[in-house]
């Protein structure tokens, strides 16, 4: 059995995004959306409150439309497990500016902390490698997250997927707007696009 993760998810996300610069971030529903908001609201954040399985694929469409910008899909193990096929689609599309970071507590934290597949032997990084990702890896300490933040700021030859193993707990929720039209238009305005 793998050792129990001890890393605090909020500390991990704060370290990951400390020097985000102009990175665009799409967050998966549930805790990753709260984690992203807890670091500080940002016009380049797209918070999901639904669309389970879609975070990385929204990231793909965005990365393809904005090849000059880095795009980060910040999601959870449950959300990414629902979008497993999307890892194959992204592997084939091979964007050079898309990273998926899975905040992995090995549980469905939003619904009562039921154990997920990632604590039972399913390795998302191995799936990403098998789908042709340019890089993949798992980190477990804050020092490793800091190194990961440096790594994902550098150019890549293709998509990358990293898993950050964190402690299974629900910190106090940090709630962004649930108005998807507002968040969408704010995000587009950040990139210089007008609302309809």
């Amino acid at each position: 059995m793998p050792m129990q993760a001890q890393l605090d998810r909020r500390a991990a996300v704060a370290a990951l995004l400390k020097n985000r610069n102009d990175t665009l971030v799409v967050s998966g529903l549930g805790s990753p959306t709260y984690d992203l908001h807890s670091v500080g609201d940002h016009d380049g954040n797209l918070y999901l409150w639904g669309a389970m399985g879609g975070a990385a694929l929204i990231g793909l469409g965005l990365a393809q439309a904005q090849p000059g910008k880095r795009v980060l899909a910040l999601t959870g193990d449950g959300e990414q497990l629902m979008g497993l096929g999307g890892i194959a689609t992204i592997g084939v599309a091979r964007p050079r500016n898309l990273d998926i970071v899975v905040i992995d507590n090995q549980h469905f934290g939003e619904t009562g902390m039921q154990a997920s597949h990632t604590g039972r032997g399913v390795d998302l990084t191995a799936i990403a490698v098998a789908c042709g990702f340019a890089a993949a890896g798992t980190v477990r300490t804050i020092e490793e997250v800091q190194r990961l933040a440096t790594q994902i700021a550098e150019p890549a030859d293709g998509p990358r997927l990293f898993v950050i193993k964190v402690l299974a707990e629900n910190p106090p929720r940090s709630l962004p707007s649930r108005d998807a039209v507002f968040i969408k238009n704010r995000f587009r305005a950040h990139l210089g696009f007008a609302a309809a």
Partner: protein
Amino acid sequence: MHSLQSNPDTRADNWPSELYRILKAADVRQMSYVPDAGHSQLISLFSADRDVTTNVLTTEEEGVAIAAGAWLGGQRSVLLMQSSGVGNCINMLSLSAIGRFPLLMLVTMRGEWAEFNPWQVPMSRATQPSLEAIGLKVMRAETAEDLVETVESAAALAYDSDQQIAVLIGQRLIGKKKW
């Protein structure tokens, strides 16, 4: 449109190239698909186009998410599938509906006209009601001529008016699959 009737490009077997022309004129820059025989020519035309990013999907709902991401980044996209794929999309269509993301889906119908495979029938019957139940506008075409006009209109509604549109392409128009 009478002018289209005399245009050889709108002959019954040439509607895919007309749709390609219309979607290019609408500045579509991304196309995603789960293949259908009825879409094969349109898929080939887009795949050969260096100005359009094409994504082959493992399941149709992925294309709904990609379309939203493309719009966030300032690009228009189109999603191609057959009617069986509509059922795969339903929850992901919440994203398009609640975010008012422009969405244009072109759906080739199976299970409704000279169908050999009975397994296509239940989802065929559910296609339009389930799309409407999640909030999409459904448009339908039964002839090549009507399809070209319908897609042109649907593209304007989607991209200029932030609507979520599915155009159903009647199986009668696509023709009988040979077994």
